């Protein structure tokens, strides 16, 4: 059958780039597997969202609705999706490996007794999938057996789907939920407000490491450069662990994986685990006072310098470029 069901994650009434990546991955997989790509939107009332995602080249959109799906919780979402998949008989269930995708998809897999491949970066013609292991130091070709498979895709691995002139039909389905199996309560979400681009969507990222020495320095030294370049701000694990910046900024094997046009690593030594999160960036710049720092081995342009002098200088030079 080869149908691919794509879980279309949404936030604040629209679809992040990561969802459009899932859509294009689903479209490619459906092409290779000889099936249809169907987007699934879950929530309380999904009319507007379903109508929006319908423009991105899928064969159909299913609006899976239930008041208890208004705030995402893994048990309710897993129940709803699984009941739908059992009813429709899809071969692959797909989502982007965002925090939500990672939280939800293994639950769906277990519920379906289906194997799951996490964070694929490529789909082979023979149906096998490629995924990174060992912090990206090995690429594994994997095979999933059984009538249904679950897949999450790395957000940097495929281009975002583009809107077209036509819209697929939308089908509204009432989600089947078993109250006895719903045991979780959403309490709150402390969202980090920012005017800057999202890390996972930005063309330019400027990241700071332990070399910045304090959260205050992130503000006074790094942020002017970030904003002059219209960039998103990232950080190494060390900077987050030290409390300089929130966890949401962590780039790396166990944080966010990014691949922007330009990645500027400031005061970051370049541990394997950090490289795992950014080494697919098109152009990499490293500014570090230690000329032996491993980050220089992946940098296209390296500057051995004291960041407290170099970064303000760079902010000025970039400003000059605009005039």
């Amino acid at each position, binding site marked *: 059958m080869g149908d691919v069901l794509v879980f279309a994650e949404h936030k604040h009434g629209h679809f992040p780039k990561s969802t459009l990546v899932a859509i294009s991955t689903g479209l490619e997989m459906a092409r290779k597997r000889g099936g249809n790509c169907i987007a699934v939107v879950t929530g309380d009332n999904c009319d507007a969202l379903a109508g929006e995602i319908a423009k991105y080249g899928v064969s159909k959109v299913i609006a899976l609705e239930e008041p208890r799906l208004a705030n995402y919780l893994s048990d309710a979402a897993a129940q709803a999706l699984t009941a739908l998949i059992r009813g429709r008989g899809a071969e692959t269930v797909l989502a982007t490996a965002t925090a939500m995708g990672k939280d939800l998809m293994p639950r769906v897999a277990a519920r379906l007794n289906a194997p799951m491949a*996490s964070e694929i970066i490529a789909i082979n013609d023979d149906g096998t999938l490629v995924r990174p292991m060992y912090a990206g130091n090995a690429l*594994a070709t994997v095979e999933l057996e059984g009538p249904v498979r679950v897949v999450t895709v790395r957000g940097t691995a495929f281009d975002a789907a583009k809107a077209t002139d036509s819209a697929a039909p939308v089908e509204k389905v009432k989600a089947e939920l078993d109250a006895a199996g719903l045991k979780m309560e959403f309490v709150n979400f402390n969202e980090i407000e920012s005017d800057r681009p999202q890390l996972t969507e930005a063309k*330019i990222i400027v990241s700071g490491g332990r070399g910045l020495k304090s959260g205050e320095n992130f503000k006074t030294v790094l942020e002017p450069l970030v904003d002059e370049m219209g960039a998103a701000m990232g950080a190494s694990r060390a900077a987050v662990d030290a409390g300089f910046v929130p966890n*949401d900024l962590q780039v790396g094997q166990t944080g966010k994986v990014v691949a922007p046009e330009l990645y500027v690593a400031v005061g970051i030594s370049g541990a*394997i685990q950090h490289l795992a999160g950014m080494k697919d960036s098109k152009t990499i710049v490293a500014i570090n006072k230690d000329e032996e720092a491993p980050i220089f081995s992946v940098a296209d*342009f390296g500057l051995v310098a004291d960041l407290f002098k170099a970064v303000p*200088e760079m902010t000025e030079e970039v400003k000059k470029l605009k005039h």
Partner: protein
Amino acid sequence: MKILVPVKRVPDPATTIRVLADGSGIATDNVKWVINPFDEIAIEEALRIKEKQAGGEVVLISIGQQTWQEQLRTGLAMGADRAILVRSETPLDPLAIARVIAKVAENEKPELIIIGKQAIDDDANQAGQMIAEMLGWPQATFASKIEFAGEKCTVVREVDGGLETIAFALPAVVTTDLRLNEPRYASLPGIMKARKKPLNEIAVDTLGVDLTPKLKIKTLKAPEKRQAGRKLASVQELVAALHTEAKVI
């Protein structure tokens, strides 16, 4: 409270990983084996909960070969009470791992299973969630804080865009993230005591769960190495290069 903590043996994160020429795996001759760092955080959290509640039991479980006893002894040395080694000569895929742990949990009846969010070798990030679904329990992944009020558990999770708080009654599965705690080192007295703590072995095929592999790794290869670029002498040169050569600003 009884807390079950699954523990995986993985290569030390600082290991230089080399893919074998035939693609069958990684070279292990230079590998130092350790407890998966996220599972270490799980053990630490279990110990802190036990200490705060002045009672309870922390039980470790591994699924692997005889050598995995090393890591279980380290966990016992940190302060866990006993360990279970489910002997399996071949590695199992995440579904099978989850089935084994869920089966053991059905027998052990822990109130809480705390497990690392991912193993740093396969980076799958599946087991905890699968265990939760198989047991029909709530799950809280990427936990940065766990609190209890009676039978209710509140967890703050690191998600995209910020921190989310969810709550549920026990029993439940929690997967750990980096900021949950900083694990203790095993003390010398702890290491001595660990030798006497129970470490029971069971053969995986005596549990009566389906172990058929459904996720198969066909081959491994090394990624394309990124070529190093060049070092520049000044900020001016750097900005000029980015503007005229790379054309990214």
